[in-house]
Each structure stands twice: as C-alpha cells, then as structure tokens.
C-alpha cells in the first residue's frame, strides 16, 4: 500500500503542476512590437478587384436544429451557411496575397477587431486579421458560449463566456490561413479567421465581390479560400496606380 500511495501522490502532484501550466497557456499572447513605417507609397499603390463565382448547384441550406438551447431557438430559424450564393457569386471567400510581398513589414492596427457571438451565430463568419492585432471576442447573447480556436501554428485556446456582454481579447502571434473557431456548446457555430502579416486581404461579399486596396506595385500570388471548396491560386502583376480585375471560379 505504501508504494501505491506514493505513486498516487506523485500522480496528483504531477497533475497539479501540469494543470497550472495549462491555465497559463490560454492567456493572451503578447503583441509583437508594431512597425511604424509604412512601405506603401500612396502615389504608386494599386488595387485588386474581382469576384468569386460558383459553378454548379450548391446543396440547399438546411434548417439548424437549435432546440438544445431554448434561448437560441427563440432567436428564430437559422439556416446552414456553407454556401451563400447570389447571382452566381459566392460569399464568405477569403482572398489574400499569399506571396510576393517579400520582407516588407506593415503597420499593425491597434484597433481591436470584433468577433461577435450574436443570435447564436458568429459575426462575421469569415474574416481576416493581422498578426499582433487585437481580436476582441464578445458575447452578445443571453446564453453561454465557449470560444474555441483550433489553430495549427498558433496557440489553441478555449474560453468560456457565461454572461451577456463578456469580452475577451486574443492576439495571434503567427500568420496562419485559416484558423477555425467553434463553439462546443452550440455545435452549429463555426467561424474562420485568416491571420496574416500584412493588410492585403478581403472577404467576398454579396454577389462574390472583393476589393483589396493600396497594394504596392508587384507580382503576387493571390489565393482564394472557401470553407468547403478549399483553395485556388492565381498570379497577378499590378503596376503603379493600376487596378486589376481578377475572377475565381469554384466548381461543385
């Protein structure tokens, strides 16, 4: 029995130490030092505009069963949003400069970007953020949510927000496209964030339109990401003060 007790006590001590470490690991990472210089010359900067098209008929949206939380059910009927299509344009596609910026460093916004939990859905569903930029996670619902990020390169975190109005802030430390979010309380809640070292990204809106402004002249690899359809890339060269049109077509 003495041996058994010793082994058991050792396990308990180890577990306590381990738990302490884990608690600390979910804290917000320190923001990297902001770069003050902006390498974009307004006199020569160009832009990239375009649209995302969808070929084929997407599966019809399904009504989400939200009876597991009476509050969510009271918010009205909710439909799946995997394919939001209007006039052949695909919404919620993250478009960004994947390559071509070299070693340029860009200012990091200090204004927090807000990810809201409202009506038992995430708003926005797809968005971009820069490394070092604060992400404010807000609970606007009168029910509990847990915000669970599942990155591959950044630090995973899972925080509970039991009351309406609660906020927590997180700062990503590494570029990563895309970082999924989910709520384990409400398994229909999903969101994705593209974390980048630069501000050249956009999310396609209604009719699939996107617009990336203030791009330095150069040749870039542009990638478009969709939560179900994966990624597509294209090369584009932008001259001084030039506005290029670019179109991506996803097929079902």
């Amino acid at each position, binding site marked *: *029995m003495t041996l058994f007790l010793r082994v058991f006590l050792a396990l*308990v001590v180890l*577990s306590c130490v*381990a*738990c302490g470490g884990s608690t600390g690991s979910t804290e917000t990472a320190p923001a990297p030092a902001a770069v003050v210089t902006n390498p974009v010359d307004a006199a020569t900067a160009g832009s990239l505009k375009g649209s995302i098209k969808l070929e084929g008929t997407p599966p019809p949206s399904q009504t989400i069963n939200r009876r597991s939380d009476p509050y*969510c059910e009271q918010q009205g009927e909710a439909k799946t949003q995997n394919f939001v299509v209007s006039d052949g344009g695909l919404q919620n596609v993250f478009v960004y400069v994947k390559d071509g910026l070299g070693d340029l460093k860009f200012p990091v916004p200090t204004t927090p970007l807000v990810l809201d939990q409202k009506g038992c859905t995430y708003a926005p569903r797809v968005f971009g953020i820069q490394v070092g930029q604060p992400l404010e996670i807000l609970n606007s619902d009168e029910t509990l949510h847990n915000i669970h990020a599942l990155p591959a390169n950044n630090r995973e975190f899972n925080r509970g927000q039991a009351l309406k109005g609660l906020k927590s802030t997180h700062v990503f430390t590494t570029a990563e496209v895309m970082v999924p979010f989910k*709520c*384990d*309380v409400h398994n229909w809640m999903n969101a994705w964030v593209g974390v980048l070292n630069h501000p050249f990204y956009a999310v396609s809106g209604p009719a699939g339109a996107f617009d990336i402004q203030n791009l330095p002249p150069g040749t870039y690899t542009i990638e478009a990401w969709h939560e179900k359809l994966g990624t597509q890339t294209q090369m584009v060269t932008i001259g001084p003060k030039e506005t290029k049109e670019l179109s991506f077509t996803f097929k079902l």
Partner: protein
Amino acid sequence: MLLHLYAVLVALSTAVLIFAGGLVTSTGSGLSVPDWPTTYGWFMFTFPLDKMVGGIRFEHTHRLIASAVGFLILVLAVWLRLAEPRRWVRQLGYIALGAVITQGILGGITVLWYLPDPISIAHASLAQLVFCLTISIALTTSPGWKRAYSGRGPAPDDRVLQAIATATTGLIYLQIIVGATMRHTDAGLAIPDFPFAFGHLLPPTWDAKIAVHYAHRVGALVVTLFAIATTGHVFFHHRTRPELWRPSALLILLIALQITLGALTVLSHKHYIVNSLHVVTGASVLATSLVLTLRARRSRFEKFAGSSKQDPAYGLPMDVRRAGPLGPADPIGSARGRA
C-alpha cells in the same frame, strides 16, 4: 449482504457514468465547459440548472455523475476497510478509490489540454478498469463467492477454462482500447460501410484512421471467436455449474448486441445514442467476461486466501464460520473473532 448490494449499486452507477462519458464524446461536447474543476467559473455543484444548455448538458452531467460515483467508491472503500476481513478485498477498495481519483484528474487534464488523444484514450481506458474494480468488489463480496459456489460440489479447477477465459477478458480490454483510440482519433467512420470495407473484405486504401478502424473490426472477430470458445468449453465441461454457464451465455448475448450496435454506429453515421450504447455495452462485455474469469479461478482464490494469516474467513469450513459472535449468519464477525 448489505455491503455486497452496495457494491452492486456502485458497479451499476459506474456503468451509468461510462454511458454518460460516451455521450460526451459522441456529441463532441468534451470542451463545452472550458474550465475544470469549476464550470464557467461556478463551483461545480452550484452551476445553475438553467445554464445547462447545448453540449454543457452532457459534459457537466458527466462531471456530476463522476463526482457522485467518486463519492460512492470512497464510501465503499471505507466500508470495506471497516467490515471486510479479507485484506486483498480491502485493497481492491483502495485501488478503486485511487483509480477513480486518477480518472477524475485525467478527465480534468484532458479538458485543460484540449482533448489530447493519449490523455483522452487513457481516460476512456481507465474508466473500464474502474468499472472492472467495482465489478470485482461486487463479485467477491457476494454470498455465492464466499460459499465458493459449493452448492453443486467444490468449485472446479479447470486450467483450460481459466486460461481461455483470462485470454478472452484480456482481448476484450485490448479491443476496448482500440475502440477508444478509434473514437478519440475520429476514425469511427473511416470505413463508412458495414460489414464490408469500401465494398471489399480488405480496404483498398489505407491510412492511420482506416487501420485503427479495421483493427477494431478484426478485434471484434477475434473476441467473438474467443468468447465462443470459452462458452463452448463451459457448456461442454461445466453444464451443471450455473455460476459459469450463466455469464457465458450472457457474454455471447452481449457480444451479439455489441456487434449489432457497432454496425448501427457506422450505418447511423455515429448517432450519439447508438454510439454511447456501444461504449457501455462494450464495458458490459468486459465485465461479464471478467466475472466468468474470476469464477473460473475461484478455487485458486481459495488457496490464496487460505494461505493468508490475516484472512481467516477464507478457506474456513462453514461450521467454524457459524461460531461468530453475531450468530450463525455472521461469517465476517466469526472471522474477526477468530482473527
């Protein structure tokens, strides 16, 4: 007798806990409560009922049942300490208590570390050991065990049965670990059809998930063959021993049910109720095989207990036991008095 009934209650509550744990995994609710041992900052037992929504219903209920089972096992260990004359049975109580506490800590760690597969698999596997310990205590405190099932003559010392039953129990436990690995690595639908694998006997393509899933199916076949062999041996050689043929028959029935539930789990795309029933039925298969194994080895416990100076209740003739201070039906008292 009261102690035995209580031990049975503890074993049943442990089975309920395993089912509740299965529901947590099957509904993907393991991280719906991000903190531990608190629940969204509340002390676990004061968490408001109206906030039990979505995945929290499964995760928090699992924690509450686990706490209750932990308390029941604590009481069981203390009761055994006070009333049980056999040292090794008392030690089973201590081990069960240590195991259930370790199990709780593992459950907490797996939440705080975001469900790492090894910890989650260890949590699932240790749960089965806790169940086995409570089953063992319930069995060894039963009147039948204490009588050494002597109603139809002395308990048989069949080495073949002992070996094959032990092997079957070990294989079932191994199969449960493979199943836990499959669950926690999200390989439950890696092979989407049943009874074939992508329409073939052997999967045409392989990856880690398909391998784990296929190993679980092959494991089911191996376990079934061993269970049939064990049951066949019992019915051929020990048909007059109800303490052996009853668990043998139950084992076959439970395995048939378990295979059906496994197939339904795949065909229903892991419906959470079916999936959780598959988990708890697996535990029942293990428990039944363990009971059969222990009963098959009962005569060896007799020798083991008879050699212990601190456990005089074992191996004593019934007439000596009847001399206990509380009268004829007091084997424990008689043992203590003698000690």
